[in-house]
């Protein structure tokens, strides 16, 4: 896990790239003037907002991150078809359930990404991260964290936990190296 970027004038390289793309998309043009203005904004905004931010881990393996993004997009489409079938099918056959998934990640940013991924993919919505932050004394790190998820149709709890850990959590650990 690394918190500091290579260049001090570019504290968050991926956010700068995203700001640049959003500026070009909002204006819907690639004229030189807009490219220059977008580049200036992409450098100035992260520098100006840096004092308010808490440091988050940087993406260390960009290639793997892009591959993981496409895997998640593919999973979103297939998962949506499954959920649509479950919703249109008979309600009485559904067995909902709450499942606690043990987490290996420790930083809040990768956990947020994992929770969002779980919410968008097969029949699950992430509900809570245990233990509660309020129940810990100030600044203490819990040894073990759990993610509570709600499953629309629970068939095999162990298989679901293994899928989430291998398919979604392991690449995130690799990307952020933590």
């Amino acid at each position, binding site marked *: 896990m690394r918190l500091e970027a290579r260049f001090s004038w570019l504290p968050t390289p991926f956010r700068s790239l995203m700001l640049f793309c959003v500026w070009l998309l909002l204006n819907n043009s690639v004229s030189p003037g807009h490219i220059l203005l977008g580049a200036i904004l992409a450098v100035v905004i992260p520098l100006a907002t840096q004092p308010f931010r808490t440091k988050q881990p940087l993406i260390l393996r960009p290639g793997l991150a892009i591959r993981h993004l496409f895997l998640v997009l593919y999973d979103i489409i297939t998962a949506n078809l499954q959920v649509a079938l479950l*919703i249109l099918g008979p309600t009485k056959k559904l067995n909902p359930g709450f499942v*606690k998934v043990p987490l290996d990640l420790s930083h809040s940013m990768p956990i947020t990404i994992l929770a969002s991924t779980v919410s968008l993919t097969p029949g699950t919505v992430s*509900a809570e991260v245990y233990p509660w932050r309020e129940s810990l004394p100030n600044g203490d790190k819990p040894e073990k964290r759990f993610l509570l998820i709600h499953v629309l149709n629970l068939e095999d709890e162990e298989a679901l936990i293994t899928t989430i850990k291998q398919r979604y959590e392991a690449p995130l650990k690799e990307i952020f190296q933590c």
Partner: protein
Amino acid sequence: MSETSEWIISILILIGGFFVLVGSIGLVKMPDFFMRLHGPTKATTLGMASLLTAAMIYFSQLQTGISAKEILISIFLLLTAPISGYMLIKSAIHHKLKSIERTSGKDNIEDDV
């Protein structure tokens, strides 16, 4: 506008409308809050993404040059749907909403502080 792109746009719009409708049917049909949450967070998001892709192709055909700004709304919805779902389920747990009888693993929910 060419015949092929009209077909593609029509199919994408129909898929989008279908998924949006499925999300709302899930909202009405399911018996408890936690199950209702699944429809709007997943089906509606994919439906919107499909509709906005269709709009992107349509406006690219209509004007000269491509128009890609519709993809901004799709990305925004894809990023924010899990967050609002998370906030909603958190407030539902805080209010101790009842889930239906056959829900398994209810004792995994811890009381909040």
